[in-house]
């Protein structure tokens, strides 16, 4: 065999080897869609969902109507008005609670113990809501709502007496929650965010002297003397008003804060 023939044979061999080791993707075992085939439409699925939704909605509407009829039968004017507004109120019975939240029994998980019952959401993260907020928990005593709690952005707000449900009480509860958040932020060293929380709270609690004192000390620490001075003065002014109103011994309890405020006013005014 000549050298040329040997080279040819080797090249042929390499070619054959390359052909044998060629990677092959075999798409056959899986479903393959080829040109000309049809993509099924989703009309059947939509129709099935439509029938199911219509059936569910009809059943739920019937249940809700029955609950509403039971709720409005023999209710006191206040409770009737609350049900119509869609707001939970103390003294409601179970049907009125559901009517006010526009829910059915499927929305609630009920734990009963003697004459008491606790209503909570049956589905996680899907609390029943009334016009005010998401209702986290309702305590029923002898078939009547004794207290309830809202899950609000500022935290849990509990309504135990009629006054707690008023707009003013709601603002006070929200303001107090913001003050608490501000205190926690101060403790964790985030003074600027704490100040923002206190500022929000001061809109809701305009007559709270201790809130003014908190804001004043924070501003003082942040080397903002003009604003701090104003807040210290406001704190003392509100305390004077409180003293005139003679509310218990609040003035005596705030003695240290008063002394500190007066001292800082002298220092800041001298600058």
């Amino acid at each position, binding site marked *: 065999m000549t050298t040329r023939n040997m080279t040819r044979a080797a090249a042929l061999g390499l070619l054959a080897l390359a052909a044998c080791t060629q990677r092959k993707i075999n798409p056959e075992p899986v479903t393959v869609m080829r040109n000309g085939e049809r*993509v099924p*439409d*989703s009309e059947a699925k939509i129709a099935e*969902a439509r029938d199911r*939704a219509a059936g569910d*909605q009809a059943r739920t509407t019937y249940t809700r109507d029955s609950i509403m009829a039971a709720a409005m039968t023999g209710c006191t004017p206040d409770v009737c008005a609350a049900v119509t507004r869609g707001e939970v109120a103390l003294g409601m019975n179970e049907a009125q609670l559901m009517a006010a939240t526009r829910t059915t029994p499927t929305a609630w998980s009920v734990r009963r113990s003697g004459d008491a019952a606790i209503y909570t959401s049956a589905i996680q993260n899907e609390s029943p809501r009334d016009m005010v907020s998401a209702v986290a928990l309702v305590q029923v005593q002898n078939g009547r709502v004794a207290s309830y709690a809202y899950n609000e952005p500022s935290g849990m707000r509990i309504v135990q007496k009629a006054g707690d449900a008023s707009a003013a009480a709601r603002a006070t509860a929200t303001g107090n929650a913001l003050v608490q958040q501000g205190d926690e932020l101060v403790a964790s060293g985030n003074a600027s965010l704490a100040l923002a929380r206190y500022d929000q709270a001061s809109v809701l609690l305009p007559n709270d002297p201790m809130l003014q004192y908190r804001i004043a000390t924070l501003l003082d620490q942040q080397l903002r003397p003009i604003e701090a001075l104003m807040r210290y003065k406001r704190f003392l002014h509100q305390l004077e008003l409180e003293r005139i109103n003679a509310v218990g011994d609040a003035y005596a309890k705030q003695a240290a804060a008063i002394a500190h405020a007066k001292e800082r006013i002298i220092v800041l005014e001298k600058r």
Partner: protein
Amino acid sequence: MAKFSFTRLTARGALIALVAAAAACSPKQVNRIDPAAVTDLSGRWNDTDSRLVANELIKQSLDGPWLKRFSDSHGGAAPTVLVGGFSNKTYEHIAVGTFLNDLERAFTNSGAVQVMAGGTARDQIRDERADQQTNANAATRAKLANETGARYMLQGEIQAIEDSEGKEKVVFYQIDATMVDMESNAKVWIGQHKIKKYVLRKRVGL
């Protein structure tokens, strides 16, 4: 010799001109075909992929437990959904509106989900409503600040992985859709569809 070359050149030129003329005269063929027909030409994203994604997301979303959970806790009401951003993270142009509109249509026609207008469509409606406050009869005026707030937002993304060697190419698309609670940010439903394509470019004549 020179004469022979000239004749041969002329013959070749005539042949090329004839072929070009024949190509120019061949009639264009346009046929209307079934929109549901699979027509893969280049191997890139096409209408078939869009339909497959729409079908799968419709099935997954309408069968998902999130609908019943919402309905049970809200006295049978249908959840309100706003279609948000659907980002295309592939190198191809993918018209996401085709399968999103299919999904919106399925939601609305099934009655199981209430779809709210968003984006530019909503802006257009708000402009018109504002205009009605000045120009429309009081009895027929659409009221301001009476929109229904959407409880959920549908968001999603498309990603692609491509692998090729020689005449072969594999493209993998993954489409993820998520329903997010607007208040809590909780993801109440996640839909997903995957498409894998094997493209083999055959040599002409083989």
